[in-house]
């Protein structure tokens, strides 16, 4: 999975997405220059905290938000160059599944009606064929015909999320963006849905962009992982490289902050507790935007924005001081280590 295929299914170049603040006086830089390719058939994970821009990137990938600057190519095509009808047809191949399985289903419609809706909107087939496809996709996600006749309130959270998955599958997408799609589920059910995503990927040759704040989820299912902070990528590489040998101090801190079900006597890593919270994306810090919370920040970090460096094949990092050995050592005065 490390070498992307010649034609990525989706590629972003210098992607920027800006929003005006409510009073219109300032600009929120939600995504401030990211570039990546997603290869056919891979699972591309994006992790980050709230306010890192990960959801905005996901929405832009499925044309729910237009880039303010830069480009997104879908199979080599910039969708903005297409006519309205071609665009509507083309974007069907790129779907998204959201976090809250309740909010995505109309409480007054039966499950079957919700699942056939995308096909109706697409104007595809007749009612009988739409119904057949919907039932077939419900079966693929492990739901019986009997469930199809029910209303959302009669289903559990896990079942509802399965319905949402069946619903996007009806359009036979190539790429599905999963935005915190398992975050609202109980642990026991989360495993089931992650297994289902993996099965469907094999069955339909799907490509996923998996957006989450949960490192254990992203490292379980992704082939590659990007770490976002304040609208930029800090690190990008194969899951094994990023999770087992992180290069950026932020990745290292995120990994150590993740609560692990391990008794204290068996822990080998020292916890790095970052102080403070993610700064405002209206005026991100100068130079490296992580420097205000970085335990290894130097004077240089405030002056120059780090380059996006490829330290080993396919493993990129934006840090002046990262080496092949890993992130720079924390400053002596750095606080908060336990």
């Amino acid at each position: 999975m490390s070498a992307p295929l010649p034609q990525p299914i989706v590629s972003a170049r210098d992607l920027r997405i800006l929003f005006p603040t409510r009073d219109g006086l300032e600009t929120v830089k939600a995504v401030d220059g990211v570039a990546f390719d997603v290869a056919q058939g891979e699972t591309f994970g994006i992790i980050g905290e709230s306010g890192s821009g990960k959801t905005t990137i996901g929405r832009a990938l499925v044309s729910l938000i237009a880039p303010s600057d830069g480009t997104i190519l879908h199979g080599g095509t910039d969708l903005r160059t297409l006519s309205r009808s071609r665009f509507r047809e083309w974007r069907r191949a790129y779907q998204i599944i959201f976090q809250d399985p309740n909010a995505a289903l109309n409480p007054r419609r039966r499950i079957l009606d919700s699942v056939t809706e995308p096909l109706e909107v697409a104007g595809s087939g007749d009612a009988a064929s739409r119904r057949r496809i919907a039932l077939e996709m419900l079966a693929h996600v492990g739901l019986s015909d009997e469930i199809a006749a029910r209303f959302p309130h009669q289903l559990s959270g896990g079942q509802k999320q399965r319905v949402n998955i069946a619903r996007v599958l009806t359009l036979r997408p190539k790429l599905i963006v999963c935005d915190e799609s398992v975050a609202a589920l109980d642990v026991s059910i989360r495993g089931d849905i992650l297994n289902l995503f993996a099965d469907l990927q094999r069955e339909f040759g799907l490509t996923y962009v998996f957006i989450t704040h949960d490192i254990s989820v992203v490292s379980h299912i992704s082939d590659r992982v990007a770490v976002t902070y304040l609208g930029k990528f800090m690190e990008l590489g194969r899951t094994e490289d990023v999770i087992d040998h992180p290069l950026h101090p932020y990745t290292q801190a995120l990994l150590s902050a993740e609560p692990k079900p391990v008794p204290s006597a068996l822990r080998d890593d020292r916890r790095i507790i970052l102080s403070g919270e993610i700064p405002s994306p209206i005026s991100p810090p100068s130079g490296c935007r992580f420097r205000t919370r970085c335990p290894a920040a130097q004077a240089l970090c405030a002056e120059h924005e780090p380059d996006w460096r490829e330290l080993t094949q396919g493993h990129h990092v934006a840090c002046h001081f990262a080496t092949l050995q890993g992130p720079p050592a924390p400053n002596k005065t750095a606080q908060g280590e336990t």
Partner: protein
Amino acid sequence: MSAVGLAEAPRAVAINTQPLLRVSGLGIGFRVGQTRWEATRDISFSLKSGERVGVVGESGCGKSITGLALLGLLPGSADVSGEIIFDGKNLRDLPSRQMRTIRGRDIAMIFQEPMSALDPVFTIGDQISEAWRTHFPTQRVEARERALAALSDVGIPAPARRYDEYPHQLSGGMRQRVMIAMALICEPKLLVADEPTTALDVTVQAQIIDLLRALSERKGAALIFITHDLGVVAEICTRVLTMYAGEIVEDAAVEDVLIRPRHPYTSGLLRSLPGTAARRTKLPSIPGRVPSPANMPTGCRFRPRCPHSIDGCEAEQAMIAPSSTHLARCWRSPELNLPGAVSA
């Protein structure tokens, strides 16, 4: 430890010094028409000062309602049985007037969503000092001093400035710190925290976990930490209670449970964590879901989902002691060798 009689088992483990809290046989039900829906049954555990206990289980297992019962915050329609002995008093016998003097002062609670627990039209300072003035009728000046000290205790920078700000001016992590300051201002003996970090980012969650652990160590307060996240429990708690379908099914030290759980449900929860399995392999899961009070299985309530159920599991299950430090509501627990999150 020699063989323990089934009936005495829970007590044998829990009491070696005078407990701060002893809950016994707590049952909570709700009457709807002619039917009584049972939310919890026979909840029994004790807690010493300074002990930090995690309460884990899936949604609908009765964790939150048990927490609310400890503070006397159940709705009037609840039908409650059993005892809650706190500091020598049975809280269930106390008139609501007296309960109000305990709630917030000796027992405090932190909720999951700090925004809905703070009043948007009052300043942070007003709300924190009110928590003090409710129990200690003092001068405003003194209450202000207390509130400022509480804000700095929970690591809020520039407390004097924050004092006059409104909840919407604070980030999620800061609001949760305010909730903790409010809960701790009267130096309670017991703090009940219901998913206090679930809505927070991991880096902020790590800060709040460290803060709660340090405060409990420094002030000797006991902590009941309700969560669905066993990783968080491992970070902060000394003991775990696993709840399933309204019952406690396991009670043991955190270290023991993570390595060798004694109830198949706890083992299933630990094994379904994505961090425990090898990458891109199938995650073990627990088939089915928590039964609703309307179709509660007879005998062991976990039986329909349990990979280890055999003839005999349809009998009512008591808490037994498979080892001297461990309680489990599973008659097979002494013979089962269940996997945990890590092997020793």
